[in-house]
Every structure is written in C-alpha cells, then in structure tokens.
C-alpha cells in the first residue's frame, strides 16, 4: 500500500509539472498583455506534432524536442504579430472569439498537413524502462525524467523573471503597461517575446506529453481547460500562483481518482462505490476551484483589485 501511495504521489507531481508548463505561458500572456488566449492549446498541439514529425523523420527524439520548441515559438510569434496584436485594445469577448477562431484554423490546418490519423511518438530508448522505488514498486523512468525536466524549466522561468533584464520588463509590464511604454521600452517587441516564450513552453509540454499520450488533432483543448482552472486557482497573472495551482490540481486529480472509490467502498457496495467515486473524482478539481474562489475571489496569489 505504501509503494502504491508513493507511486500515486509521483504521478500527481508529474501531472502537476506538465500543467505548469501550460499554465505559466497562459498566465504570463494574460498578466503582461491582458489577453485571454484560447489558442494556447493549439500551440501545445503544434509542439507535439512538430516533435513527432521531426522525430520520425530524423530518428532523434532530441531533435524533435528542439523542433517542438522552435515550431511553437515561431507559430506563437507569427500569431502575435499578425493577429493578436490587433486585439490588445479590444474587450475580452473579441479576444475570445478571435482566439477561438485560431483553434479551428490550427486544428484543420494540422489535419490538412498531417492527415486525420494520430501520429506516433515514442520515448527515446535510454529513457525506457522502470526504476525501483523505495517500497519495491516500479516507476517508469520517463515519467521521472519529465518531472526533473519540468522542475528545471520552472526554476529557469523563476530566474528569468526574477533576475534578468527581460524579467524586469515583464514584471513592469504586468504592473503598468502604459508606463513602461512611456519609459521607452519597445513594447511591441516585448509582447512578441513574451507570447513566443509562452508558446514555446506550451510546445515543450506538448512534446513531453505526446510521448506518453496520443498526438492527434484536438489534443490541446482538454489541457487548456485544466490550465485555465490552474490559473484561476493560482491567481491570474501570477507565475507563483500557476506553480502552486498546477501542483494542487495535479495532486487533487490523481489522488482523487485513486482514493475516492476506495473511500466510498468502506460503506457502499463495490459497484455503486466505483460509480459515485469516479463521478466525484472527475468533479473534484472544479470543487477545489469553487472553494478557492469562495475563500479568495482573486485566486491564491492574485492581486486584489
């Protein structure tokens, strides 16, 4: 039981770390530019497809990973310069409509290029296999690698925002957009960089997740919904909030799916315990979100307005 519990904790951590890669980009873009970007899930899909296609073509997962970062960043920068830029001064409804249209364009465009059948993407050979956890259970090596890589990216992101000149500008942009433009910062360039950075993080998440899941059109939307839950819990615009929110959602979801049916089985017959337990488990993260919003309407780390 201990080893199963430990394995589930690691699963929760891994799912949280992947969510953070998605949510950090989303929250950055909202924090700095005030833009609701529904097409963020499409950039995740672009990353996964780029990784799968390049890995299949060259035989190297690492080149695929580089390609996923590049493709998502380039797609993000192009989208920002061609379309998103015209939306900053519009209200949120216009932004939602335009970025929803982008989802459709990306989905059908991807289908047009790669066809309707899911692509193959596998774990690189030296990361296959399992490691023995304390307690004797096995854990897939690749999931451990994802956790390490995700945490490394999180640390890198905090350093970038906390310690570099670009980070200072990003934080200044969050605090007062009008003022940093007046101070002579090239605001257009800053926005493009931030958007491309967020896109690259989403693309990286897509490549990682694509190796364990299915690389197919429409893969980004379910993750996008979770990422929105994360940034609402964490407080919109806050990177720290995105990290805490991601881990909270990852652990809640995994442990809920694991423990709730067991908990109900102590006082119900097995089949209704399974039915009620799994139904409640799928709602759990939304219940957590509702609770957080009830106690702290602007999220855990949100600026109080």
């Amino acid at each position: 039981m201990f080893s199963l519990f430990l394995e589930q904790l690691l699963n929760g951590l891994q799912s949280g770390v992947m969510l953070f890669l998605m949510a950090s980009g989303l929250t950055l873009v909202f924090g700095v530019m005030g833009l609701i970007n529904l097409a963020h899930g499409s950039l995740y899909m672009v990353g996964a497809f780029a990784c799968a296609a390049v890995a299949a073509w060259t035989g190297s997962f690492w080149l695929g990973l580089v390609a996923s970062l590049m493709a998502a960043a380039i797609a993000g920068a192009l989208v920002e310069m061609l379309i998103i830029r015209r939306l900053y001064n519009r209200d949120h409804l216009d932004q939602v409509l335009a970025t929803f249209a982008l989802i459709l364009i990306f989905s059908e465009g991807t289908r047009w290029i790669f066809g309707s059948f899911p692509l193959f993407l596998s774990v690189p050979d030296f990361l296959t296999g399992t490691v023995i956890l304390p307690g004797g259970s096995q854990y897939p090596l690749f999931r451990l690698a994802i956790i390490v890589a995700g945490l490394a990216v999180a640390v890198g992101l905090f350093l970038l925002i906390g310690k570099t000149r670009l980070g200072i500008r990003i934080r200044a942009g969050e605090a007062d957009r009008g003022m940093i433009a007046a101070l002579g910062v090239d605001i257009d360039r800053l926005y493009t960089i931030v958007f491309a950075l967020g896109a690259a993080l989403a693309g990286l998440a897509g490549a990682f997740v694509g190796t364990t899941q299915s690389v197919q059109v429409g893969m980004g939307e379910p993750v996008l919904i979770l990422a929105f839950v994360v940034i609402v819990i964490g407080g919109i615009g806050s990177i720290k909030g995105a990290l805490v929110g991601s881990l909270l959602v990852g652990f809640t979801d995994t442990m809920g799916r694991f423990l709730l049916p067991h908990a109900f089985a102590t006082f119900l017959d097995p089949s209704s315990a399974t039915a009620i337990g799994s139904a409640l488990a799928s709602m759990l993260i939304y219940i957590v979100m509702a609770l957080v919003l009830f106690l702290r309407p602007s999220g855990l780390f949100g600026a109080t307005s």
Partner: protein
Amino acid sequence: MKGIKTTIAAAAALLAAGAAQAEPVKVGMITTLSGGGAGLGIDARDGFMLAVKQANNPDLEVVIEDDQRKPDVAVQLADKMIQQEKVDVLTGIIWSNLAVAVVPSAVAQDKIYMSVNAAPSQLAGRGCNKNYFSVSYQNDNLHEAAGGYASSAGYEKAFILAPNYPAGKDSLTGFKRYFFGDITDEVYTKLGQTDYAAEIAQIRASDADHVFFFLPGGMGIAFMKQYAQSGVDKPLIGPAFSMDQGILGAVGDAALGVKNTSNWSKDIDNPTNAAFVESFKAEYDRLPSLYASFGFDTANLLLSAMDKASISDKDAFREALRAADFNSVRGKFTFGPNQHPIQDLYVREVVKEGDILTNKIVGTALTDHSDAYASECSM
C-alpha cells in the same frame, strides 16, 4: 430551330429515363470528417464509396456531409437531407450519442437508416424499428466476445476499465455477461482522460491475472503507450477499436501481442474480403480498417436490395434488405429479428507484417452470435 432541337433532346432524355427500370435511390451520409474523431468517419466513407464506385450503378446517388461529431449538427444535417435533398436512405453515423439523436426521428419519417458503426442498445431492444438496419453489430458484441475469450482462455480474475459514459458502462456490462471469473477491480475513468498513471498503478497493485479495457480513440493510444512504459506485464484484452488499423501506427510496438475481439479482420478467408482489402489498398494507399469494412458492406447490402426491389415500394425494399443477399467481407452474414447481424466474432492478435503493425486472427470467440436485446424487440 434551336427550340425544336432542345425539345427533341429533352424528349429523348425522357424516353431514355423511362427505359431504365430501376428507380434512383438517394443516400444521405452523415459522418465525422473533421476534428479528433475524423479518422473513423473518413474510413467508413471511403469503404462505402469504394463499393459504390465498383458497382458503378447510375441509379445510386450519395450526398455526404460532416457532422463534426456533434449531435446538434447531425440532427440539423438529417433534417436538411430529408426535407431538402429528399434522400431515401440515411447512413454514416459513427458515434452512438449522435445515432440516438438522429435515428428515431429519421425512421419515424419512414426513411431507411443503415448503420455503418453505432448500434446502441436503445435501438436494438424495445426501440427497434423496421426502418433501422445495423450492418456493423450491436454495440455490446465485441465486449461480449472479449468476455467469452477471457473465460475460454482460462483467465480467472479480471481488472476491467472503461470511461464513465453510457457506452463505457455498456462495455463492462457486455464483458461481464460472458466472463465467468471474478472481477477484482471495476474502474471508470473520465471521458477523454489521457493520463492513466493512477489507474496503471492500481493494475500493478491488484491481483488480477488480466486487464480488459475499452478506451476508444486517443484514450486507448495513451493507455497502451503508458501501459507498455510502466513495465506491468498482465495481458491486455480489449475490443478491436483500440487496436484498429487507423490507430496502430500511433500506438507503435506497445500494441504488439495485445489480444482484441472483432467481427472483421483483413485476413478472414473469403474472396470478397481479399478483393476488398486489395482494392482498398490500391484506391487509398493504406490498409482498410474495421470502419472501412462496415462502410463497404453497407453499400453492397444497399446495392443488393436495389437490384431486387424499387425504393418506392418500401415494404419490398425492406424485405430485400432483410434478406441480406450480398457477399459480405465477413463471409456469412444474416440479420436477426431486430435487424442486427448474426455473425461470428474473432480473437485477433496485433502482429508486425514487415514494418506495418496489423492484426491476425488467432481464434473464434463466439459463433453465430446475436445480441442480448433481440428478444425485447417486437417486430
């Protein structure tokens, strides 16, 4: 002068039309051609149109529309096809929730509906209808076959897993109907879930001797890849959907050796099937899937009825369909009393032929199998 010429031409055309005995049949195909589930609809359409092309019957006209896997869109398309296009026959729906939304109203307007895939229990028992024909199966069939296979292969303890939605529950019920061992765990996952780490950890910890799973589409791809990465070695059994030709390429070697149950396989030994696989490959440059075979059979069944009866005589036309007087790629094919097939169900294993992953029949799970709802149908 010109006026006279046109009149003569028109009269000639009328005469020519009168000379042809058969009445034209217009088919409305509503299927999923865009979005995540498009692979299935495209296969069904391609199989159907291959048979239409081969028959080259000038009296058959097909209108195709994309339902985007949305029930409301499917309902609108069905209304449009019935009222504006004046179709005689509807077909093409892949997903059961769309079929439940479209079929009852279409058959009530005396349109014939021929299913290329979805065949929910609601339309097989008390809700059966003389205008509704399922060419594929009844939804529970492949799961029942998996249960039958698990029992006969000597498995005793099953870990069973499906998404938490009606078809998922039907699937586990179907499995249990023919599996006579113990169920150690019965797990329902979220529909559309793509990370199965938590469930795989439970499989590892359970004392089951095999795993039955029904996870269609991307869910199955994700599950099988993660299962192979996890190092758990309990044998997997599932219905054909997760091991179908359109999906195997994306699962990769993780699928090798997995047993799955199906009513069709590309190696069923009969000349119709061999010709179908060959011509499908030649036409579309890929191997046909289960859905393509259903589309192909549906079109051939329709063509066989058109040879025997006129669509304006609905009773005779339905009688001709019920006779199922066509060469099915599945070999023998007859309809039961609820107009769902009575057929053999096979066990297949995923193998590699050259570089391509595909399925090979390794046994028969159930013979001349009908469905659990036929007795409730009063027709």
